[in-house]
């Protein structure tokens, strides 16, 4: 038995008490609930992301034991604890290189990296272009609330110009980063934007992202109801618009043109491309077998090593 006292915030009761919610091929959504109950503020946008993610996993029939969810630090990085999976709540900004290591360590896993705008675009942005260009088959969900929430309201790299925060009391003076634009330029092979208030649409995007063979990136606009004064659901609701039906996601220039309009936040798939996946390419060269599950590891060729060093 656990050392956690009965009253402690929670072990298995989260899943046990919930009413059944059938989904997927005879699964129940509760199968995807982690041991912990979410600790986000009431009304937080991340609930919508969690909900959409669990429904995606259920629809795609992914076993929790073959799923790794990796995150850094921040409000949204708590997510792995609320999903039944192998969860890795690691170091601030390091979700992507860690997720890459997990995927290379066991390529059979479905690997999802998740985190916020501060985690992924400030301290961790050095890893973003490299994860994108390498094109490992994993999904990166960037939960963008345009503020540092866990540390209580400082400027983030996506906070818009003029917005007042605790560290920009007279308003932010630098322009924000545009993560979708970056992802396309960095070479991500699936780039989408969703909105945490539109769970069904977001679920469809996440499902497409997970199905995509390569590095898939989903920016989720996810309002902070506590520190995002004036940029809550009321602010984003009218600005989120569906992707034009005639947009060709294979057209990189069109995608970059659409994303450059920062007044309207288009939701949908901006860009997708078929490009050889990284692990498959390593495996074609004999490597990246990861944790061997079939015990047929190739042996060290001692004779060729001896020749080489003598």
């Amino acid at each position, binding site marked *: 038995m656990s050392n956690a006292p009965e009253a402690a915030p929670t072990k298995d009761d989260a899943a046990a008490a919930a009413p059944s919610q059938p989904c997927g091929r005879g699964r129940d959504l509760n199968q995807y609930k982690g041991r912990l109950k979410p600790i986000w503020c009431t009304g937080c946008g991340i609930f919508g992301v969690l909900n959409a993610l669990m429904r995606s996993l259920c629809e795609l029939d992914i076993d929790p*034991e073959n799923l790794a969810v990796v995150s850094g630090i921040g409000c949204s990085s708590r997510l792995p604890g609320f999903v039944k999976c*192998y969860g890795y709540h*690691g*170091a601030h900004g390091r979700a992507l*290189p860690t997720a890459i*290591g997990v995927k290379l360590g066991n390529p059979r896993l479905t690997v999802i990296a998740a985190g916020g705008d501060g985690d992924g675009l400030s301290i961790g942005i050095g890893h973003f272009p490299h994860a994108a260009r390498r094109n490992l088959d994993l999904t990166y969900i960037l939960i963008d609330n345009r503020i540092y929430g866990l540390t209580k309201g400082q400027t983030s790299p996506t906070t818009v110009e003029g917005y007042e925060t605790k560290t920009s009391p007279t308003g932010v003076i630098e322009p924000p980063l545009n993560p979708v634009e970056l992802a396309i330029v960095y070479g991500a092979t699936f780039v989408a934007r969703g909105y945490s208030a539109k769970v069904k649409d977001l679920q469809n995007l996440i499902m497409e992202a997970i199905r995509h063979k390569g590095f898939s990136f989903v920016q989720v606009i996810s309002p902070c109801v506590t520190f995002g004064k004036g940029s809550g659901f009321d602010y984003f609701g009218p600005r989120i618009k569906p992707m034009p039906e005639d947009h060709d996601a294979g057209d990189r220039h069109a995608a970059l043109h659409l994303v450059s309009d920062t007044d309207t936040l288009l939701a949908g798939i901006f860009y997708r491309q078929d490009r050889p996946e990284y692990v498959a390419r*390593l495996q074609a060269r004999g490597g*990246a*077998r990861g944790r061997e599950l079939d015990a047929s590891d190739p042996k060290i060729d001692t004779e060729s090593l001896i020749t080489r060093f*003598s």
Partner: protein
Amino acid sequence: MDVTDFVMGISGDAGEGVILTGDLITQVAARSNLHISSTQTFPAEIRGGQSYVQIRLGIDSIFNPGDRLDVLVAFNRLAYHRYKPTIASDGILIIDGDPETIDMASTFGDWRGGPIYVIPMGEIAAKDVGVKRAKNMVGLGAVTALLGFAPEHGEELVHRFFAKRGEALVEPNVAGYRAGREYVAKKVTKRDHLTIPKVSGEGYLVLSGNDAIALGALYAGCRFFSGYPITPASEIMQLLAEELPRVGGTMYQAEDEIASIAAAQGASYAGVRAMTATSGPGLSLMSELLGLSGIAEIPMVVVDVQRGGPSTGLPTKTEQSDLLSAMYGGHGEFPRVVMAPISIRDCFQVMRSAFEVAEIYQVPVIVLSEQGLGHRRATLPKALLKQTPIEKVTRPQRSWGPTYNRFEITESGISPRAMPGDPGGTHLITGLEHWDFGGPAHNLENRTEMVQKRFRKLRNLDRRYGGVFAFKGEDATQHLHATTDEEAGRLSAAAESFRGQIGVIGWGATAGVVREAVARAEKRGIDTAAIFPRMIFPHNDLTIRPFIQGHQKIIVVEENFTGQYARVLMHYYDFEPERLNKYDGLPFKPEEVLRKIEEVASHV
């Protein structure tokens, strides 16, 4: 001259092919069944400055590259002037120049060695071969011919080396090598007694410390490496880039050192033996994530091939200045293990212990090598690669029940480790303090219990891995290594048997020099012994306490300014050791250590 043990120095401008010439001579010697120990220094820049290789050759195992030069090979006059002070009294000089026109008296008026051979290496390369850059191969041919090496090994090795770099390079370089040999055969009269002994055998391997670490990791079951290029550690990554894919493994070149350790942790978490290798600046960047390995109990092996610090410091020179950083660097408190290999053979062997400790105890293990070991080369028997067992790499699936808790509090402190893919084992790991099931916890009692649990893992580590290398007398060397309580008792008793006048304590790469200094001191009648702990942290009281108590004076030998290990020892024991420190970037020479032993002995 004692031809069973001699030292050769090769010097020239960086870009003249000094390092390659040295490498090829070591390989020729190894194929001729001679042992070697070689070291090299080169400037931090790609071109310009002086390169130097020192090779000691002999018929017995050699543990350091020696002191005085019996042979100096100079590719130009500047190189000659720079290294002439290190020549032995009857040492020979082989130098590039025109023997017809050179004014011997004025050019070599200050030479204190023996015979001089002026060989027109550059001219032969330019005129006879037609490729100026083949000068070093002419030199290689001349030197191997003068020393009496059979021609075929050199030719084969030159061929092999250049064939890998382009077929067009093979012919002129082989021609250069042959021309050098021919010149010596036709035009040079041997005027020295230095001829290599004829020894039979199957030849030896030639490994650098970095090679040995990479191969040791491979044999220890490591199947994932991530790293970022850094001098002097990159060769580990380069060798594994070739070898890991051959055994189904992965070499991942990350975008920086933080990504390197993060990826290695991810792979380790996923169930693969994983490591990274770096030098001091990289270790600094990794220190935050070492703490994550500590609290989230992710097995991890980090190799630090130390160089002169701080900052960019002396990137191509050696130093032992990351010890305290390895032991204490980072924030917060967590269990970790620091090991330091003492030789090139030990670079190979230490990796098995490092991976074993990391996996069993679920802790980060830092292996401290250094430039002077990573770039040093030594001969080792082929049996090392033929007979060393290869650690199994499969981690079969295991099922876990509903009561599974990843961080279960146990008597040993070690908790059962489920890996992704295992049925019933899903759990959360986090860098936050956590309950036994992984969920974040701020509960005070749990915090106390968890810290204690994690540190309990180190409790008996010194009994099992706290072996020391002990050197006493001319050949007496033993590795005291215990795996049971009974053996630990014997180990302690053996250490207590080392009683005497001067006790030398060091760590890491200085062992090869210290053991020779101790042997020479013994010959001069000074009662001396030395020990080198392989696992430096946790501290190994079992053998070090009786050694310190058993000697009248202790000298702590270190390649750093502040005496980092001396300070560690002073923290554990109430004593004031003598210190021998060096921080100019070069390794100790046996005579430097011998002088210190003699000086201290004269005051006892």
